[in-house]
């Protein structure tokens, strides 16, 4: 469903992605863990063309894109197939909670406002924020903002939702509500790639765990294999540090 081949990315002399190959199947939930600076977020952002890759190909649904030279049209198509949930929520600050969700439907998918509002209300209800539709982002807590962010991503009915450390910017007591929303989504057979530092969550929710280190996929497998097998030194030292 989504397949990346030979993805390379450098910032100047600093090579952050050194030939990434991976594939996600329909309905699969993949969590990506690893130390800071290992390239997890860059990988995710490259899929959404928020970073310019130096080389690589992306296959998503029926799209086949050379990531080094993507056309504007291809980038827009790919973004409609892969929705992003940001670390800092990035809700549109000039829009209400409801408008944050409906905006993409109206502007990108040319949906009628009435229909878009209806879908958006349903999604707000699903993330438990039905009574906040007229709130501005600044009036919502971090956890509430992120739940709107997730609803915004779901609205586009993407083939895959990309979560870029969705709880890293949250106060500890707000992490649970956001993880719960993601877990609920997981039951609905939605394809997800989740970059996270929440190890318990990564283990619990994932069909497959990817451990990234220094720009490569260092280890990959079923959650209990990755977390319990003691065969990778870097992984074990990482897990000890975060655990």
């Amino acid at each position, binding site marked *: 469903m989504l397949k990346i081949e030979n993805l390379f990315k450098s910032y100047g002399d600093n090579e952050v992605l050194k030939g990434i190959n991976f594939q996600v199947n329909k309905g699969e939930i993949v969590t990506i863990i690893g130390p800071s600076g290992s390239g997890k977020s860059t990988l995710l952002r490259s899929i*959404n*063309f*928020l970073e310019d890759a130096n080389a690589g190909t992306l296959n998503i649904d029926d799209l086949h894109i050379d990531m080094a030279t993507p056309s*504007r049209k291809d*980038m*827009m198509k790919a*973004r*409609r197939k892969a*929705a*992003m949930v*940001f670390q*800092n929520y*990035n*809700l*549109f*600050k*000039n*829009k209400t909670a409801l408008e944050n969700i409906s*905006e*993409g439907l109206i*502007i*990108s*998918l040319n949906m009628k406002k009435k229909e878009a509002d209806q879908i958006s209300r349903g999604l707000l209800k699903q993330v438990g924020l039905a009574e906040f539709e007229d709130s*501005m982002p*600044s009036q919502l807590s971090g956890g509430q903002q992120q739940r709107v962010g997730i609803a*915004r991503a779901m609205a*586009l009915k993407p083939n895959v939702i990309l979560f870029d450390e969705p709880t890293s910017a949250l106060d500890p007591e707000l992490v649970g509500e956001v993880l719960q929303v993601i877990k609920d989504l997981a039951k609905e057979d939605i394809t997800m790639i989740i970059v996270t530092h929440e190890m318990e969550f990564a283990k619990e929710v994932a069909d497959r765990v990817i451990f990234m280190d220094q720009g490569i996929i260092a280890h990959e497998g079923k959650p209990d294999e990755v977390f319990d097998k003691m065969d990778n030194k870097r992984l074990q030292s990482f897990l000890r540090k975060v655990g």
Partner: protein
Amino acid sequence: MNGFDLNYFIEIIPSILKALPITLSVGLSAMVLGFILGLVITLLRKLDNPVLNPIIDLYVSFFRGTPLMVQLFIFFFGLPQIIPFIAKLNAFEASIIVMTINASAYISEVVRAAIDAVDKGQMEAALAVGMSKTRALERIVLPQALKVAVPPLGNTFISLIQGTAITFMLGLQDIMGLTKMKAAASYRFLEAFLAVGLIYWLLTLVATMINKRLEWRLSKGGAL
């Protein structure tokens, strides 16, 4: 003819105010048109066109780097030598054109800084929901940038209103032009120029007040 003639000072104020519509229409027209032109310049610059950008930089640099009076003189007295059509413009039209261009250079810098002040995650999120860059600017980034731009735009407007004072050099009968004539006729220079100074000062205070109110309303979460 010495000392300060208070009666003359008080009497001359209403007669100067007869020219206020001229001053205000030059200032307001230059502000509105300069804002539109400044916005266009900023957006053109956002295209990162290798041919266009140096031209825009030159334009902005020239009109911010030379005195408004020099620009007025070049346009009104100089350019008709090579563009005869300009000789047909009157002082009022010429003043609006030059002040619009001058204002657009300043305003484009204000708007550019305001766009840069908007968190880049806003543009990313808009792109991520499938919007084109243009739509993202129009729907998400610009509305937030304009909020940031209101205070400095208020200052630009105040400079513009005060800048209109030199258009009398082209023969425009604005409040300054009218004052100068009246002063020359009565030899009451102190009273006349003090009176017109007071009027400019009041205009500035009113503009500041309106700007403060607008800022306050926007800070309450209101949209533009």
